[in-house]
């Protein structure tokens, strides 16, 4: 009988959470009052006002409780005569179990003990008897109040209200055209669309490539993979627009003639799927899942002329600069490498720059057409930032948080702007002014994440392919007719100067 009373008393003591009302002040409290604003504010200040209420709450909370214990422990050191326990950090269940366990008859057989031990290890993940768990007290935690967790803000971002400054040009908020792209592979790492200088838009849908003639609206199926399991992982037009390079999941790089709709070459040199391609006159560069980049000289039989090993994971972004001097590559290892067009001293290619600042896969890689050596890169879900670099100095010229996975960046030749394609949550295209990095417009419409962007040869229209199996054409870089005439005049004036000098 006595043991039950003892137990009940114990329960009562252990459960007492609220301070005893009308009790005389504890000695430490009296001492604190005497010594004036000495030790107590020191103990109080780290605590936020909200935490003070916790000391009287019923449910023991772990974080603020510890600062509570700190308060109590300081005066005891000053007074030095009482041990004041902190109930909220004590493991009540564990304590109770251990205390009551002693009262059980120790009649367990050895095998039963072993069994229980095994269960305990399984449940707790460690042997309760052999291990101690320690926790550091006196945390300075808890970010300042009013700090809303970044992730929530990121993923629940609502549409930003239109800029107060009126845009100098009208950008239609609806796409010009919406094309169907059934069976398009929803894989962030692939590059499935490209627009040729002859105004053909090539789209890879799973294992076939279709060409869409922008002028006539005609659709041609160019090719279909023989093997059903093989899919197309990248497409890229040669500058002249008569040949199309196709990368497959079976690690092949194929070259197709559009006029005859025939395959000219099948170049095998990779061991894994070829997710990205880029042309530099007669050199075709391909990036694979192994992280290797191969240069292919398409004029000769021995096409594989160089290997660049700079990535340890899939290469998803690859772009030659417009003057052909540098090749920029982005990978799933969050690195951006800038390679020279010629080999270094040892016959090996080494990157002239490596940028490690991105915290996510870099698929969006684009060179600025009007400024030499300026490169824009965008990071995936873990990063969401767009960065502009000067590849000669290696400096990051500007950074902007796009709040969403960046899949592609394209610079405009008509305006000093660039456009970026995004994923969750708005699946929008954003036009940015360069170099001020202000948002000019946001184009919404896609119902799933955007996978790729490509630009028309005249630079007025951007095509976006998304996981919602549509292609949308946005006429966002339309030239003003007046400005267009001025540009044409400037171009023709230039040519006449050239003619004069030739004479």
């Amino acid at each position, binding site marked *: 009988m006595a043991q039950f009373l003892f137990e009940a008393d114990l329960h009562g003591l252990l459960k007492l959470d609220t301070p005893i009302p009308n009790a005389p002040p504890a000695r430490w409290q009296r001492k604190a009052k005497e010594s004036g604003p000495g030790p107590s504010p020191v103990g109080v200040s780290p605590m936020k006002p909200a935490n003070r209420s916790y000391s009287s709450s019923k449910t023991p909370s772990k974080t603020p409780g510890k600062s509570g214990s700190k308060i109590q422990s300081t005066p005891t050191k000053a007074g030095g005569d009482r041990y004041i326990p902190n109930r909220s950090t004590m493991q009540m269940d564990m304590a109770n179990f251990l205390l009551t366990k002693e009262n059980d008859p120790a009649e367990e057989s050895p095998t039963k003990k072993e069994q229980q031990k095994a269960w305990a290890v399984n449940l707790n993940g460690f042997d309760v008897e052999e291990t*101690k*768990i320690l926790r550091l007290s006196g945390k300075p935690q*808890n970010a300042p109040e009013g700090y809303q967790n970044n992730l929530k803000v990121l993923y629940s971002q609502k549409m930003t209200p239109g800029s107060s400054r009126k845009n100098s040009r009208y950008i239609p908020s609806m796409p010009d055209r919406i094309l169907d792209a059934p069976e398009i592979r929803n894989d962030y790492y692939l590059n499935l669309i490209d627009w040729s200088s002859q105004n053909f838009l090539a789209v890879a849908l799973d294992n076939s490539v279709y060409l869409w003639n922008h002028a006539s609206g005609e659709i041609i199926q160019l090719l279909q993979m023989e093997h059903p399991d093989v899919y197309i992982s990248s497409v890229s037009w040669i500058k002249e627009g008569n040949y199309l390079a196709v990368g497959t999941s079976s690690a092949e790089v194929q070259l197709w003639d559009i006029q005859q709709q025939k395959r000219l070459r099948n170049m095998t040199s990779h061991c894994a799927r070829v997710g990205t391609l880029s042309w530099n006159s007669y050199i075709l560069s391909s990036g694979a899942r192994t992280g290797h980049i191969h240069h292919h000289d398409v004029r000769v039989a021995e096409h594989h002329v160089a290997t660049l090993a700079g990535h340890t994971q899939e290469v998803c972004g690859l772009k030659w600069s417009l003057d052909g001097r540098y090749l920029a590559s982005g990978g799933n290892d969050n690195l951006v490498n800038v390679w020279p067009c010629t080999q270094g001293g040892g016959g090996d290619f080494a990157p002239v720059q490596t940028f490690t600042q991105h915290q*996510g896969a870099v698929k969006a890689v684009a060179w600025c057409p009007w400024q030499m050596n300026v490169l824009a890169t965008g990071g995936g879900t873990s990063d969401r930032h767009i960065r502009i670099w000067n590849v000669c100095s290696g400096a990051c010229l500007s950074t902007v948080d796009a709040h969403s996975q960046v899949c592609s960046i394209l610079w405009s030749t008509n305006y000093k702007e660039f456009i970026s394609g995004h994923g969750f949550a708005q699946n929008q295209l954003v036009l940015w002014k360069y170099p001020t990095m202000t948002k000019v417009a946001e184009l919404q419409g896609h119902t799933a994440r955007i996978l790729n962007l490509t630009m028309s040869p005249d630079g007025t229209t951007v095509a976006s392919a998304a996981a919602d199996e549509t292609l949308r054409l946005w006429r966002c870089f339309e030239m003003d007719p007046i400005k267009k005439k001025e540009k044409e005049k400037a171009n023709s004036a230039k040519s006449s100067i050239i003619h004069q000098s030739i004479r």
Partner: protein
Amino acid sequence: MAAQQQLGREHQGITLRGSAELVAEFFSYGINSILYQRGIYPPDTFTRVQKYGITLLVTTDPELANYLNNVTEQMKEWLYKCIVQRLVVVISSIESGEVLERWQFDIECDKTAKDDNGPREKSQKAIQDEIRSVIRQITATVTFLPLLESACAFDLLIYTDKDLAVPEKWEESGPQFIANSEEVRLRSFTTTIHKVNTTVAYKKDSVP
């Protein structure tokens, strides 16, 4: 002295003390990465540093930095003595106190390293590569971990040998498991003396 140790590490292989330092350093950067990626602290309180050949984010908040330093120093000591088995970063909601995420780093220590005095053969670079992969994976977990809706706080738990004397500033605690959890194993790395396995457990979303 430190320079000598560094040289020792590069040319002569890994010693027990060197290994303890490497692992403690990894924990420091790993915890910083977790705090940044999970949004426990505002992102503008972090600054970028170059480490392991990649850009990492570490906190500039002096109190937090001090706190983490204390932990790192203590871990170094315990790793050297091979008495620590696990480091856990517990992320819980401030309001409800519920544990939402649990990052568990299991440490396997080769105790024979204490006895034999010769350093082990493993290049600094190989270890750095392995650590780099783990940290990248931690960064990439944001793509599948559920969003942390409310403001959260973190806690550090260290599993040590039973007979260890509890040092000042430390106290005993429970394991703080998550009730209904999904677990993901990340990469591990080893210095040939210490092996660290990483797993992250998160609360399963009630809405499928």
